[in-house]
């Protein structure tokens, strides 16, 4: 077989390529090339005023802007010694539920499912199964509508500030979405049933799973960083347990644990570590999915996303039913110098921010560790594991299986690139 080369990966966020070198039936090299240009966010965040940060970091990713707003808000609140009120916290969770719904529906149906159904895109899928695609778009739209009701628009919403929200969203537009959310919850349960019937490639990997864990709720905001090997790390200690190294032969920065292992973040890790905190209806869906935990097949992250989608629809319904603006929409902030940490679970995995603020409220230092930067070495390691299995396949099928593996991670290459200490290299 010839080398497997995908110069520009499709149906992923951002620009990346894939290369598997093959010589005399042996794998010589496996590489995920990232040629997304750097945008230097950590550079230009310096000297900005702290309250500008959530709006700016949202622009790191158009698919998960809420994750960036949330991690930066929590990190800056920790730096400025601010605690948000319980109603603010609840509204933040609702916003996050909405982002999970739109991001997971997009990934399940528009980005990954075409690979499992032998199609090039969801548009092509719509030609033979229009109802599946229409329902998928409707599911995605509900998430976007909730975001719009809270933040004015779904991509880069404008209502989040350090301390809470600029104003409480109106009650009526949110409550009016309840019937659609109820429909979405059923559609998500149906998605779980459907997802278990798809033909996933075989691949079992011995991962170290890492996710935010919270004893009382499905971990998304706040909590501690939990690893499947038992390590519990407070968010403020994250950089001591999870290290990024620049490895010479690689064009990407490699994250590993303090013990030297590459680790996995994202829906599989969350489900494996936090399934006990799922809402009952999502736990039922998990049983119905037939998944045996811990899940170790990266392709089946689609099923994990489907189960999570059930959870987030159900939680969104609860939160909207209980929603009643109460007290100020944002906390008073006294500007003071300090350093703070924040981590939340973006749909594609743990997102860590750290800021140093001076006594005028200006950012002195910013550090951001996005989920895809943490997963990149894992993806490469998975490709190495997958490579021998695809050697006997037709070239086109082997290429698709490798591409599909990368896509199953839901990589966000724009996010990863701006922080990776990488060599930007064009795939020739």
């Amino acid at each position, binding site marked *: 077989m010839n080398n497997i080369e995908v110069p520009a*990966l*499709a*149906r*992923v*966020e*951002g*620009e990346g390529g894939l290369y598997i070198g093959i010589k005399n039936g042996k794998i010589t090299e496996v590489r995920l090339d990232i040629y997304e*240009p*750097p*945008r*230097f*966010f950590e*550079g*230009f965040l310096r000297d*900005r*005023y702290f309250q*500008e940060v959530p*709006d*700016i970091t949202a*622009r790191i*990713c*158009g*698919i998960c*802007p809420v994750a960036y707003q949330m991690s930066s808000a929590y990190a800056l609140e920790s730096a400025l010694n601010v605690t948000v009120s319980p109603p603010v916290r609840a509204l933040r969770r609702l916003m996050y539920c909405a982002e999970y719904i*739109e991001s997971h529906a*997009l990934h399940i149906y*528009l980005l990954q499912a075409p690979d499992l159904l032998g199609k*090039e*895109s*969801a*548009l*092509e899928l719509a030609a033979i199964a229009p109802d599946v*695609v*229409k329902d998928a*778009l*409707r599911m*995605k*739209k509900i998430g*976007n509508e909730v975001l719009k009701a809270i*933040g*004015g*628009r*779904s*991509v*880069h919403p*404008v*209502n989040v500030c350090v301390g809470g*929200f*600029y*104003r409480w969203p109106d009650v009526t537009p949110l409550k009016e979405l309840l019937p659609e959310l109820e429909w979405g919850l059923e559609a998500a349960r149906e998605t779980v049933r459907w997802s278990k019937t798809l033909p996933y490639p075989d691949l079992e990997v011995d991962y170290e799973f890492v996710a935010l864990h919270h004893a009382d709720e499905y971990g998304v905001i706040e909590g501690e960083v939990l690893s499947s090997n038992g390590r519990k790390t407070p968010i403020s200690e994250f950089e001591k347990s999870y290290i990024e190294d*620049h490895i010479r032969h690689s*064009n990407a920065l490699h994250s590993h644990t303090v013990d030297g292992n590459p680790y996995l973040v994202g829906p599989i890790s969350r489900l494996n570590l936090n399934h006990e905190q799922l809402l009952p209806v999502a736990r039922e869906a998990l049983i119905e999915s037939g998944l045996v935990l811990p899940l170790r097949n990266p392709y089946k992250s689609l099923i994990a996303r489907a189960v999570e989608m059930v959870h987030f629809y159900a939680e969104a319904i609860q939160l909207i039913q209980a929603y009643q603006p109460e007290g100020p929409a944002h906390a008073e902030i006294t500007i003071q110098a300090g350093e703070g940490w924040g981590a939340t679970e973006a749909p594609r995995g743990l997102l860590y921010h750290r800021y140093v603020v001076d006594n*005028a409220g200006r950012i002195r230092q910013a550090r951001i560790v996005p989920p895809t930067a943490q997963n990149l070495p894992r993806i490469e390691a998975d490709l190495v594991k997958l490579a021998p299995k695809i050697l006997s396949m037709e070239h086109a099928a082997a290429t698709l299986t490798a591409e599909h593996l990368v896509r199953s991670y839901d990589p966000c290459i*724009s996010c990863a690139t701006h*922080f990776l*200490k*990488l*060599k*930007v290299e*064009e795939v020739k």
Partner: protein
Amino acid sequence: MSVIKKPSVAVYKFSSCDGCQLAILNLEDELLDLAGAVDIAYFLEATRAVKPGPYDIGIVEGSVTTPHEIKRINDVRNDCGILIALGTCATAGGIQSLRNFTNAEEYARNVYAHPEYLDYLNTSSPISEYVQVDLEIWGCPVNKYMVVEAVVALLQQRKPYFPQYSVCMECKRNGTVCVLIAHGSPCLGPIVQAGCGAICPANGRGCYGCFGPISYANTGSLVPKLVELERFPQETALLLRNFSGYAPAFNKAAEMALDLAARKEAK
């Protein structure tokens, strides 16, 4: 410009966050109809299928920030009949154009352990700085219905109808109380193109200009007022040097704001 009945469309990504391409995919109610009205020939974010060019319509998201992107944008221009710049990165250089006001090398050293591995330009520039652009759709992100309007207008061989007034008009229409006058919140609304729906003032905060300057922006009148209201040093300049900061009108206004703030300080 003229367009064939079912034009081929190519969607490209340059330096950006993907949010404007996502705005296209967020056309949940219109996407399938839209995909039926045109021939989506190249759109990597949505499909693996790639048809060879040339294409009737090219839609470019993102700004030009690397030497390779200079070459690529010229290729794209050659491949496409009508070229549309999609979003504020493509029309004004985007948030990453903040490097244009400083030393990009310093940013690189701050962020990267081995800046010598990076291949980047010292500037982030709008598409029109390198090639001719036929239509600009501003917004960070764009209003997805403006994308539909652009495509429909091309199909009907007419000029697209985009609002030619400022965000203030949208506030009036929404019945939103002026945040600048009533609360003294710094707001760029009077000098910013409408299109977003004036969502920032509706959420109790001033406009931060992500749809870019309006053609008749009276910055000379607004900027001194904003400098007067500053809650922290250089607030106005920071507000202008933002998502549309490299747009010439905002760049000049930011310089004026810095100058006025320095004079205020000296007093």
